């Protein structure tokens, strides 16, 4: 996929051309950083040249929306092709994102980031990972969506790209994770063991309901420290 940026009258337009899939994770992360950083601005995601999106890309788009909302920015999606219209309708994304030609968010509540999964539509969200610096300036990996054996490769690569320095504290933020399996748990344990050998203190943060239940069920919460951000 090709991404281009234009700025006109204070509106940042990002045009998408080609196929938007999990392969575009690295290219899209700067866009997420951009919408997360510029408070009070308007962004337009121009999808006129976009032919295809997979569920991973949908996850990235939701992350962008979440980050923009937190930063007080607005994203409008326009030029969605008919084939993608169907996908946005099926997954209920039209009710979350502001998409021209689809239902717009109807209330402040419906404007909140929506879980990746949608029973009504049967949408499947793969893992999305975004590297950030936490409030103390330490590296953190913020995860969203479903984290299963199929995502281990992405998780491992995201950690590698983060390259947390020795002596640092590395947080895996689970707040956005909806579902996790034992293979994902194992990959976290391995990542912690590996981090410790490099002098990095890998910790978990903000597991929600069922994820916390899983950590307790498997006693993994007794092996990997869990931090809870009181603001969550």
């Amino acid at each position: 996929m090709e991404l281009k940026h234009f700025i006109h009258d204070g509106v940042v337009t990002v045009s998408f051309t080609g196929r938007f899939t999990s392969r575009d994770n690295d290219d899209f992360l700067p866009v997420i950083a951009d919408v997360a950083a510029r408070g009070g601005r308007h962004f337009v995601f121009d999808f006129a040249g976009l032919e295809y999106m997979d569920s991973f890309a949908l996850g990235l788009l939701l992350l962008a929306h979440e980050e923009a909302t937190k930063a007080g920015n607005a994203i409008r999606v326009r030029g969605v092709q008919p084939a993608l219209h169907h996908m946005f309708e099926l997954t209920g994304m039209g009710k979350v994102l502001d998409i021209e030609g689809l239902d717009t968010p109807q209330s402040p509540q419906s404007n909140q980031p929506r879980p990746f999964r949608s029973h009504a539509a049967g949408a499947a969200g793969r893992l999305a990972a975004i590297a950030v610096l936490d409030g103390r300036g330490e590296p953190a990996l913020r995860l969203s969506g479903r984290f299963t054996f199929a995502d281990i490769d992405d998780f491992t690569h995201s950690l590698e790209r983060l390259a947390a320095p020795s002596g640092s504290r590395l947080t895996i933020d689970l707040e956005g994770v909806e579902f996790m399996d034992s293979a994902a748990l194992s990959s976290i344990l391995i990542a912690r063991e590996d981090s410790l050998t490099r002098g990095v203190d890998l910790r978990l943060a903000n597991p929600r309901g069922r994820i916390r239940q899983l950590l307790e069920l498997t006693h993994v919460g007794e092996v990997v420290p869990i931090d809870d951000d009181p603001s969550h």
Partner: protein
Amino acid sequence: MTTTRPTDAPPPAALVVAGAGPDRALLAREAAGLGVGVASFEAPTDSPLILVTSEVDVPALWESLTPPLCGLIEPDDDGRLTLGAPVIAAAQRGGIGMSLTTKTAYRAVPAEQLAAALVSRQGVGTDAEWKIELAVQEAVTNGLIHGNLGIDSGLRRSLCGMKAFGQLLTDRLAEPRLAARRIVVVAVPTGDGIEVTVTDEGAGFDFAARMEQPVEREATSGRGLGIIRKIARSVRYGDGGRSLHMLF
């Protein structure tokens, strides 16, 4: 957990084709071999309908588990409906099911779809939904990885091993013979619960040996079965270690 039972046994199941699928003559032969009829979306029928399509994505899978449909059989490349019988048997007992190739099951998230369908069809509560989704996810993963793709769990013991695991997974999925192997997931109401069965086409897993092993809390692999045993009411295995039956 509450379940609803049909008051009468449903009429014989029928196959219905959407999108790409076997041609009419082959479908008729396959249906006859499975002891069921062929229906169409245009002609109303009381039969539980099982979707036959080669175009299996997440929305299609969800659709196939939504009434009047109660399951999906993905045909082989040559149009044969391999391991379709368990799906039909489940449908005729008021249940749901799917017979998918490994390649499809890897990307279509059958555990999530099945659990969500049981919520809307059988009135499964949210706690039971999570348990069923988690257990089915673990069972399907075991069936795909260790069964159909023949990948040893021992790989996932180090960061280096995890990378090798990811590469091996990609390589094995690219082997047509392995990618075509089946994973079958069916769920049938039992009166006071739901029995979910996951079947693969691998060499057979040594459940007896694994069930005896305790799972250390620091263990970096081999947790899946331990989780299933903790959250299912009962677990048994069959078919030489290719089938796992879980009661919820």
